[in-house]
């Protein structure tokens, strides 16, 4: 039996009829055609499907669309207007080479968005634990950490750290 739900996605309200078993990530990707939210595993491990649900970062592969009824969703597409300007995190990732293949990037950025919303001056250690639910196979995380530190500085209005690669 289909269930009628109302969800606000990136500021736009949608009324949808969905199977109760429909996963939120499939609702976002298949019904709303917002393909920036990715699927990288089937065990709630990788975080590629991370979105903001009422401002909290969650893994949309382990939430039913019906559970989002009445709630507000932000996906990567909703962070900034198309073509920019970027959010501090998007800018941080670009300036610091915080992405390679780009597949984990939307989830990583949405997770970091909540992290910085709670604490815009995190330590490197807090960042590493804070993104521990997001797997990246390309970057080795150094530059993701650097990107988040950069975004934090930008949000605090402080001088931005160098974005040149640091070589020993």
């Amino acid at each position, binding site marked *: 039996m289909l269930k009628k739900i109302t969800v606000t996605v990136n500021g736009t309200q949608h009324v949808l009829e969905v199977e109760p078993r429909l996963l939120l990530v499939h609702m976002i990707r298949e019904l709303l055609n917002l393909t920036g939210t990715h699927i990288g595993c089937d065990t709630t491990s990788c975080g590629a499907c991370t979105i903001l649900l009422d401002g909290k970062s969650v893994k949309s592969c382990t939430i039913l669309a019906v559970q989002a009824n009445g709630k507000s969703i932000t996906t990567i597409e909703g962070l900034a207007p198309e073509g920019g300007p970027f959010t501090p995190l998007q800018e941080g990732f*670009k300036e610091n*080479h915080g992405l390679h293949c780009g597949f984990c990037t939307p989830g990583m950025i949405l997770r970091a968005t909540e992290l910085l919303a709670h604490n815009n001056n995190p330590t490197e250690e807090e960042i590493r634990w804070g993104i521990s639910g997001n797997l990246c*196979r390309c970057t080795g995380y150094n*530059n993701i950490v650097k990107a988040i530190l950069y975004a934090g500085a930008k949000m605090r209005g402080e001088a931005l750290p160098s974005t040149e690669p640091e070589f*020993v």
Partner: protein
Amino acid sequence: MIQCKTSKEVGGMGHSLKRKEDARFLQGKGHYVDDIKLPGMLYMDIVRSPYAYAKIKNINTEEAMKVPGVVAIITGKDLEKYNLHWMPTLMSDTQMVLPTDTVMYQAQEVCAVIATSKYAARDGREAVKVDYEPMKPVMDPFKSTDPSSPVLRTDKPGKKDNHIWHWQAGDKEKTENVFKNADIVVKQQMHIPRIHVVSIETCGCVADYDKVNHHLTMYMTTQAPHAIRTVIALVAGHVGLSEERIRVVSPDIGGGFGGKVPVYPGYVIAIAVSFLVGKPVKWIEDRSENLQADSFARDYHITAEMAGTKDGKIQATRFKVLADHGYTDAAANPSKFPAGMFSIATGSYDYATAFVEADAVYTNKPPGGVAYRCSFRVTEAVQAIERMTDLFAKKVGKDPADIRMQNFIKKEDFPWKSPTGWTYDSGNYQAGLQKAMDVVGYAALRKEQAEKRAKGELMGIGISTFTEIVGAGPSKDFDILGIKMFDSAEIRVHPTGKAIARFGTKSQGQGHETTYAQIIAEELGIPAENIQVEEGDTDTAPYGLGTYASRSTPTAGAAAAIASRKLRDKARKIAAYLLEVSEDDLEWETGKFFVKGAPEKSKTIQEIVFAAYTNHPQGMEAGFEATHYYDPPNLTFPSGAYICVVDVDKETGGIHVRRFVAIDDCGNIINPMVVQGQVHGGLTQAIAPAMYEEMIYDDEGNILNGSLMDYLVPTAVESPKWETGHIVTPSPHHPIGAKGVGESPTVGGPPAIANAIIDALSPFGITHIDIPITPFKVWKALKEHGAYDK
């Protein structure tokens, strides 16, 4: 500091240009294969075998066909009618697309369910009932060739055992003699475990066959679109899919690492279904399917031996490999090299005698042997030589750094001929190691270690000084299925001086859209931001063998440079015409030709290009385009010196990587930021097999860790803060002196970590633990060596 010849605005080689491709990924506008949605598209799901080795007695599809939305179920028998039930592997072995009678590994494809939605396809999959007759699988490669083991490949006429191939290099007899007379011999049995690439995007495709125009468009996760198009034509040419009717498109790829080189059965089934029903068919694997069925990497059992003098001179090495390939050899090595470049196992050391041999066997495991972020078995080779060097140092009683310094091939001895037949192009190993030791503070660390040991604390320092062999490869020796391993670039400069460049390779995150543009910017002076790079569409890109084995810069990067130089030659002619001087009177400076002695008389590249369309010399071909297919004269030999520092918790076996310093030498650097990013990423893929990852099977052939719950991909917490740097020894034969870097860290990293952990445990007499070295293994080794005895 890297010296740049171009301004930041031009953005040629040496500039840390921010990546051109990032904008789309940062806004959720990347275009990956699962993002493709075509009208009328059907969805495919695959029924997989719960058994490692079983006869299929019956496939009952009755209930599944009743599931709303299910439109078809395809079995091996269906494909057999079209002779599409088997396909060749890239190693000229054969692999089932779908089985007609026997399954050979757990999670093997059994049949495919086609439905109008993803959900219906999965419901259909659950409703298919397969009746199996399980058989005792062959799981231990050491017992695979026992007469008591069943012959697995009964499909091969006359096959009497499970042996696949034997391969060897070096001089067996001479090596035996050196070993006989050596002061010191060390020997170690080791396993380089079966692991998986785990690109965060799994594999998948949308096969779209147009019955009216007899044309297939295949959107797929492939690192080698051109080669795949040829393979599809070879597999399905007999049903009318000839090569001009096939377009392979590799859209954005969410990480490849070698796992997206092979042709998986799912792709072929999707093509077959689309061909039969005339509708697009999408197939996207689950992660668990990806882990359990797609090509594995490594799985080499190595008996390694090193001989030398008592004062520490290495004299010879001997390596004997048993390669477990699963039920078919689905590696992706160059044809002449079934064990890939394993014979690079003599490493960075100057000695004249070695013998390397490998035997491959079949078992009831998934097929593969892909080059996971590794130029064909170099990782296995480097693990072997770097572990043996430490064992040798221990036996001689010298510091592992001193042993390496003592034995390095000297800078002035390049090009250097290795005892297994390779010609190393260039290197400066002493300088690399010295830099790494200086950065890490080697002497102080050894002092700290001695103090800690006196207090019973476990600290270890590990070194790996490796040589890679990449950029396959010269056409006289290198081909895949007969296709020579060149690669290509085509540059088309528009009248306004902006360009599009297309390549036979395919980025999976390496940043080709930026770095290739930088090579062309360096050569032509057209700003990199005005050069659009395209790859992955076989209808538009020139033919090439694709991106893997660190070959993009060595091959396609070289092609970009040479195609640019062809254009520069044309530009000189046009400039001479425009300036009314002889070509010999012109001098090139980035971005313009000027008259010698009269630099105010010049024509910029933009002016020259415009003239090529508007005012070209009579008799000259109009336009400004060039293509080059680059056939490298030799491979390139990147190297590195890595030092790892670990602290081990004696009570729990817990390992903390405190420092990791990586000094790479990849020759000339195109984009330092991108190179560094590659090294960071590769290092996390080094700590992974060194400490976390391994695919584990029980005796019945069940995979015990077939999901990311138990296959332990490191997070930002496990991954330390990498410290990276470089020295630069250009490749003398490469047009821009570059060597390739993507795989060095994955290849060179694991032994540095393993050596560090073993070093920490050495006070207890522990000399070796196979990777992945986990806390449990450390605890066990400590216990066995009496560390917990009261």
